[in-house]
């Protein structure tokens, strides 16, 4: 199935779910004539119509990346998600160095420059943000340096 049709289908499902969810919104007794349901339902209807148009008149497929590249993208995604979770408990320097190194490796697969980039960016950005811009960043995890 072409990408556009797939996307149209997904949007249609989401639009229907949106409309259904909108009808469930609680309404208070003090209400204006429109109410909190109308605008979402309107949006849902417009999306559904546009999605149907997309399904019936799809554009040519874009170039999706090869599976090797998809794997790279997926790794990058996982690393970024892990970074979001790791920032609070682990401080700034370690997770940033790891994430920057992994991203650099994904873009250009050379291990040593990637690692240097990671460490360099991590320290450089930390200095920039903490001392030049005075943002409050915790460098190390709580247990390590008092």
């Amino acid at each position, binding site marked *: 199935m072409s990408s556009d049709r797939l996307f149209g289908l997904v949007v249609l499902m989401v639009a229907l779910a*949106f409309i259904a969810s*909108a009808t469930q919104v609680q*309404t208070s007794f003090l209400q204006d004539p429109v109410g909190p349901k109308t605008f979402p339902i309107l949006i849902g209807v*417009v999306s559904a119509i*546009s999605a149907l148009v997309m399904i019936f008149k799809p554009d040519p497929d874009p170039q999706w990346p090869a599976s090797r590249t998809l794997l790279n993208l997926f790794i990058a995604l996982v690393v*970024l998600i892990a970074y979001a979770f790791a*920032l609070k408990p682990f401080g700034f320097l370690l997770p940033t160095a790891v994430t920057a190194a992994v991203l650099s490796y994904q873009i250009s697969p050379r291990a040593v420059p990637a690692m240097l980039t990671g460490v360099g960016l991590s320290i450089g*950005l930390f200095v920039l943000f903490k001392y030049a811009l005075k*943002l409050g960043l915790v460098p190390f995890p709580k247990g390590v340096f008092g």
Partner: protein
Amino acid sequence: MDMLANLSLGFSIALSPYTLMLAVIGCFLGTMIGALPGLGPSNGVAILIPITFTLGLDATSALVLMTSVYYGAMYGGRISSILLNIPGDEPALMTTLDGYPMAKNGRAADALVLSGVASFVGALLATIGLMLLAPTLARIAFKFGPAEYFALYLLAFCTLGGVASNNQAKSAIACCIGLGIAMIGVDSSSGLPRFTGGNMHIMDGIDFLVAIVGLFAIAEVFFFIEGHGKNSSIGVKLGKVRIPWSDIFEVKWVMLRTSLLGFIAGILPGAGASLGSFLAYMSEKSIAGKDGGFGTGVPKGVAAPEAGNNAAAGGALVPMLTLGVPGSGTTAVLLALLMTLNITPGPTLFTDRPEVVWGLIASLLIANVVLLLMNVPLVSFFVRILQVPAWILLPGVTMISFVGIYSLSGSYFDLLLMVAFGVLGYVLRKLDVPTVPVILGILLGGHMEDKLRQAMVLSEGDPLYLLTSTPIALGLWIAAIVGFVAPMFLRGVLKKPQRVTD
């Protein structure tokens, strides 16, 4: 005259050493950001917003900094367009058509200086236009009631999607995605939650900064990974940089005409710098005729789109400041900045906080002059910046985005949302669905709904009030519908010129 008094007020604020320094820093940063392919003005301004906020700058200083970055990025976009044939952002596409051939002919330095001068003229004339037009428009804006505002927002959404993209259904979906996301959270009128699923983190709604940084910057990283950072190295030599006075003299009328055209194009909500540069190039091409040599590297072909797009960028500030409706993607980001600073653009901005507006206008003039002076001698330095490899740059950009967003809220959930928006941005761009309407929807969705409800309260439930409240509302509705439908028919007539391929 009233305007001169206001202008002197503005200059007294803008000429302070601190604000001047900010303007210079902003121009410098902006030019670098605009020159680097893949970053562009919207991304650059978006990433810097959380940082500006946490720096604790006051409203005028923050505005000066960010608009200098904005203008600087527009100037910077031409550097990669001319030297690398990679447009720094969408408006710069037109500059590649004659800029790159000119560079290949060995006149890269001339092309760069010429576009710098043309950008200056365009931006200067647009700023003057802004000074003249904005107060008048602000006074008209006082007459705008909720029905008019609703129609105006509708016009912005319809034209933004319509003109910029190839497929109306996709732009409609993009607008709806944005508006739908704006609905998440506690409803402003009734105080009851919508679409939150009981999740505490999104009770507050989804922050537009998270969306902007995710959709623009994080998605860019994914694209770079996919392309394995394949960045063609500079194939054209720079040569000695000197000022091509004869060329500048030759194009003076072109610059004036295209600045006017660009300014008008920029004012229309939804159309922006891309439309300005497109119209400027096409009109000058037809005026020059077959002997004009457009496409082979003619000075006019560089000056026209550059003046046009800078004028349009200035023009786009007009509806943003007076009505609070962004005229383009980058002005949408600027609007986000203003809202972060707790400034509500609109007619009241001119009466309540004139020092902000006039200080901004004065600093725009200063920024234009600074940029021109900086660009001509510093061109070779900026070119060296372009040599920074992608595998250092993109991880840096990502980390800066994360730090920026994290410094705003300190919540890991926002970071997750940002990554999710990055994925969404990647998918949308792959499918040729425009992302700017999504941003616009998130920014304006709440307001649009509020205006709808206020209008209904005023009319006591009569939907025709939306159309008939004043002739302005009716006119805006018609313009909106035309703006949405027309591109479907005009697509055959107005064909976008394709990029120069080697």
